């Protein structure tokens, strides 16, 4: 362990250091050929830095897996802030150190963050640098990108809640900067403000929660607040308030109901930013925070105290999962579908964590750890799949843009970007039939969608089954009746996921091209295929991770990774997933599992095929592993007599287009509450505060005109007054003495 840990601090520090360097170099060398060409406007530096961070992370992780079992705090790197306070007459000193805390969860997230950040850096080399809109300002993107990555890496490694919060806020800042990258567009700057302010609501709660926690424990170090004796010594009610506040912070960061409104608008940023926010960094932070609350729930001293909070977490997850999937049904923008899919999948993880916390709090430690592990595994799978999906959608959008320019040029229209306004390269109703033109992207998109849907044996399948199973187990356990809602919601959402993800794929890649632009698309941008292929392999390799007993490994601090038992591990996972277990209620859980598989792999995608499938244009051929899917969808569609136009024109669809009116409600709440409040504040400022100052001014004017009469101008009167004043002072002192 000693070798890697010495350099572990550099994992977050390297990107932080590179951040100002890129900004500086970018401003100095902006526009020169070498900077644009060889240096990729800072992209080369960013890629090298993230590659180094990834290398250090992997080195650290391999050392950790090989030698450490159990949760381990790896030393205080330094004393960052210490201060002294007088409490009850005694001088007490507090200090906040910066150290690193490694356990199975942080190690997993460290890998997710550094790996995806590196791949996104490579993707950006192709995506950002070949778009003329970004010319000469890419250094800003790469600098902020690195700071963002540093925020996530630092947050994952931090060994106390204070540093966790600091890095959390760095991410909030970077999300603002990057979502508003195209600040000249009003919609982008609006989206950036919205994201920043919405997450700020959650952050205020988080800060309050941390302050309560600090008040209770006198420290924010993980090692102190998680110690069994310390937890037993504090008041359960107060601790529950603190945990609730922290959970609200997580809700804001991970875009859960009711603070979800920022996430779809965050699509205004460039696509690599979407991939970064949705897969690698930002939204995982909230889940990480909730995962960090696990020891409080598992403490025997708090047994049964927090069940309602765990149920609330599961309910928030269930509601968000269902709502986001519903809204995703009608989205036409390819990135918006993915955004709502992110919300929905994160909500799955929240439900799984809610179930895990509930089990932990009611004393079912074994099942709790399994549910916890399944949630973390879903985080891993979702990050890999969603990173890939966003990059694939970026590839589609980029090539659509390019093809549009070609078409516009040939039609003799004027060159430049003025024509962007009436062609939406992100609109799926402009696409279609891209399966033959973009084989790598189409494959990546298919595999990523399969992982999100939970097609058996691919990444997300293993974890999603675990989460649905855990929620149902919780609701079948005595006292867990309240979990029935989330359990039902996630079960239904599994089918809905199958529908909207397949709908996206078929609208984009199957059928005939719907516009001449889509007909001219060619997959040609360099660098973009590298991350797509890598992540496709990672996602398909989900079965290998399952074989490592990933779920058990992440959950149970004392399990080792069985590198040598992959095959038997896969066998165990397969029988766990597909065969009824002998435990209590095993039959019903088995039924639920099978139902999940059926509705998510057959009902959902089948409906999507019936509505949106279709054969490719004549003469076009997809790769064999995609061709069967396209022709299957064409066959399903042919035999379909289902007419969905009444649905599409119904009031429900209309309100789904309006995102279930949440934005309108929030806006009107702003108008009704915040604006009058601001007016009241303005009135208070103008009349009370300004009034007091004006009163002082007026009073002194009037008073001085009275006192002015005392100035006779005669020297003798002044001497008289001075003498009397002296006498008065003398008498006063005499009286006091």
């Amino acid at each position, binding site marked *: 362990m000693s070798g890697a840990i010495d350099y572990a601090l550099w994992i977050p520090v390297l990107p932080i250091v590179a951040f100002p360097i890129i900004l500086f170099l970018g401003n100095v060398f902006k526009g020169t050929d070498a900077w644009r060409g060889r240096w990729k406007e800072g992209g080369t530096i960013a890629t090298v830095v993230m590659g180094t961070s990834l290398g250090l992370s992997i080195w650290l992780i391999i050392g950790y897996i090989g030698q450490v079992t159990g949760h381990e705090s790896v030393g205080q790197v330094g004393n960052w802030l210490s201060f002294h306070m007088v409490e009850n007459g005694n001088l007490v000193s507090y200090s906040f150190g910066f150290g690193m805390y490694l356990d199975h969860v942080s190690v997993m997230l460290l890998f997710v963050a550094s790996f995806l950040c590196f791949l996104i850096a490579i993707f950006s080399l192709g995506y950002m640098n070949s778009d003329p809109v970004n010319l000469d300002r890419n250094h800003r993107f790469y600098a902020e990108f690195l700071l963002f990555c540093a925020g996530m890496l630092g947050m994952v490694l931090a060994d106390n809640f204070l540093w966790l919060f600091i890095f959390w806020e760095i991410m909030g800042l970077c999300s603002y900067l990057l979502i508003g990258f195209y600040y000249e567009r009003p919609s982008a700057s609006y989206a950036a403000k919205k994201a920043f302010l919405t997450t700020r609501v959650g952050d205020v709660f988080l800060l309050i929660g941390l302050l309560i926690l600090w008040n209770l424990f006198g420290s924010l170090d993980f090692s102190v607040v998680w110690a069994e004796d310390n937890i037993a010594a504090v008041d359960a009610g107060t601790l529950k308030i603190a945990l609730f506040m922290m959970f609200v912070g997580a809700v804001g960061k991970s875009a859960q109901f009711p603070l979800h409104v920022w996430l779809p608008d965050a699509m205004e940023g460039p696509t690599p930013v979407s991939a970064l926010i949705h897969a690698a960094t930002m939204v995982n932070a909230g889940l990480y925070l909730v995962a960090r609350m696990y020891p409080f729930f598992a403490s025997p001293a708090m047994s049964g105290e927090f069940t309602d909070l765990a149920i609330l977490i599961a309910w928030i997850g269930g509601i968000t999962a269902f709502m986001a999937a519903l809204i995703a049904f009608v989205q036409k923008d390819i990135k918006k579908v993915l955004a709502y899919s992110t919300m929905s999948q994160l909500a799955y993880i929240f439900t799984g964590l809610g179930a895990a916390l509930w089990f932990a709090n009611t004393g079912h430690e074994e099942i709790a750890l399994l549910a916890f592990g399944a949630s973390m595994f879903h985080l891993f799978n979702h990050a890999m799949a969603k990173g890939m999906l966003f990059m694939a959608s970026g590839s589609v959008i980029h090539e659509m843009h390019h093809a549009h320019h070609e078409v516009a040029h040939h039609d003799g229209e004027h060159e430049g970007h003025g024509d962007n306004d009436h062609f939406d390269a992100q609109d799926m109703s402009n696409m279609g039939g891209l399966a033959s033109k973009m084989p790598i992207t189409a494959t990546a998109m298919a595999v990523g969608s399969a992982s999100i849907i939970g097609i058996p044996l691919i990444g997300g399948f293993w974890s999603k089954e675990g989460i649905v199973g855990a929620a149902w187990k919780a609701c079948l356990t005595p006292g867990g009746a309240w979990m029935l809602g989330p359990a039902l919601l996630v079960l239904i959402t599994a089918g809905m996921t199958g529908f909207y993800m397949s709908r996206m794929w078929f609208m984009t890649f199957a059928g005939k091209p719907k516009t001449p632009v889509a007909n001219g698309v060619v997959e040609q941008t360099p660098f973009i295929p590298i991350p797509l292929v890598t992540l496709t392999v990672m996602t398909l390799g989900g079965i290998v991770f399952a074989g490592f007993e990933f779920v058990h490994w992440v959950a149970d601090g004392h399990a080792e990774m069985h590198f040598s038992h992959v095959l038997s591990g896969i066998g165990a996972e397969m029988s766990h997933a597909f065969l009824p277990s002998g435990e209590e209620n095993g039959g019903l859980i088995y039924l639920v599992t099978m139902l999940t598989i059926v509705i998510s792999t057959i009902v959902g995608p089948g409906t999507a095929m019936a509505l949106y499938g279709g054969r490719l244009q004549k003469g076009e051929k997809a790769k064999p592993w995609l061709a069967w899917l396209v022709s299957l969808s064409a066959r399903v569609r042919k035999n379909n007599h289902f007419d969905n136009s009444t649905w599409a024109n119904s009031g429900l669809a209309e309100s789904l287009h309006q995102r279930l009116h949440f934005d309108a409600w929030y806006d009107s709440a702003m108008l009704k509450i915040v604006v009058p409040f601001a007016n009241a504040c303005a009135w208070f400022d103008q009349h009370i505060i300004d009034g007091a100052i004006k009163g002082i001014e007026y009073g002194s004017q009037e008073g001085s005109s009275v006192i002015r009469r005392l*100035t006779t101008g005669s020297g*003798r009167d002044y001497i008289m007054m001075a003498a009397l004043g002296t006498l008065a002072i003398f008498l006063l002192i005499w009286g006091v003495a």
Partner: protein
Amino acid sequence: MIDPMWAVVLGVCLFTIGLWGAVTRKNAIIVLMCIEIILNAVNLNFVAAAAQHGDVTGWVYTVFAIAIAAAEVAIGLAIFLSFYGHNETISLDEMELLKH
């Protein structure tokens, strides 16, 4: 030796007389003389205290005060002369420039 207490009492009497004169009289020269009396009342206190404590500091201050009083008289008389040159009076009732 006389009890220094008597010197202090005399100083208080002189101070009161001087203050009374400075506040009530109209003639500027008499006011100037009254101020001299006040200063000398203070000098008397200094000397008395110096004699009681056997400390030379009080005498030194007295010498300074006399020197400053001489300078003050010279300046004061010069001001009155110039005032008389302008207004042909040195009545303090006419001196109200401070009001403006």
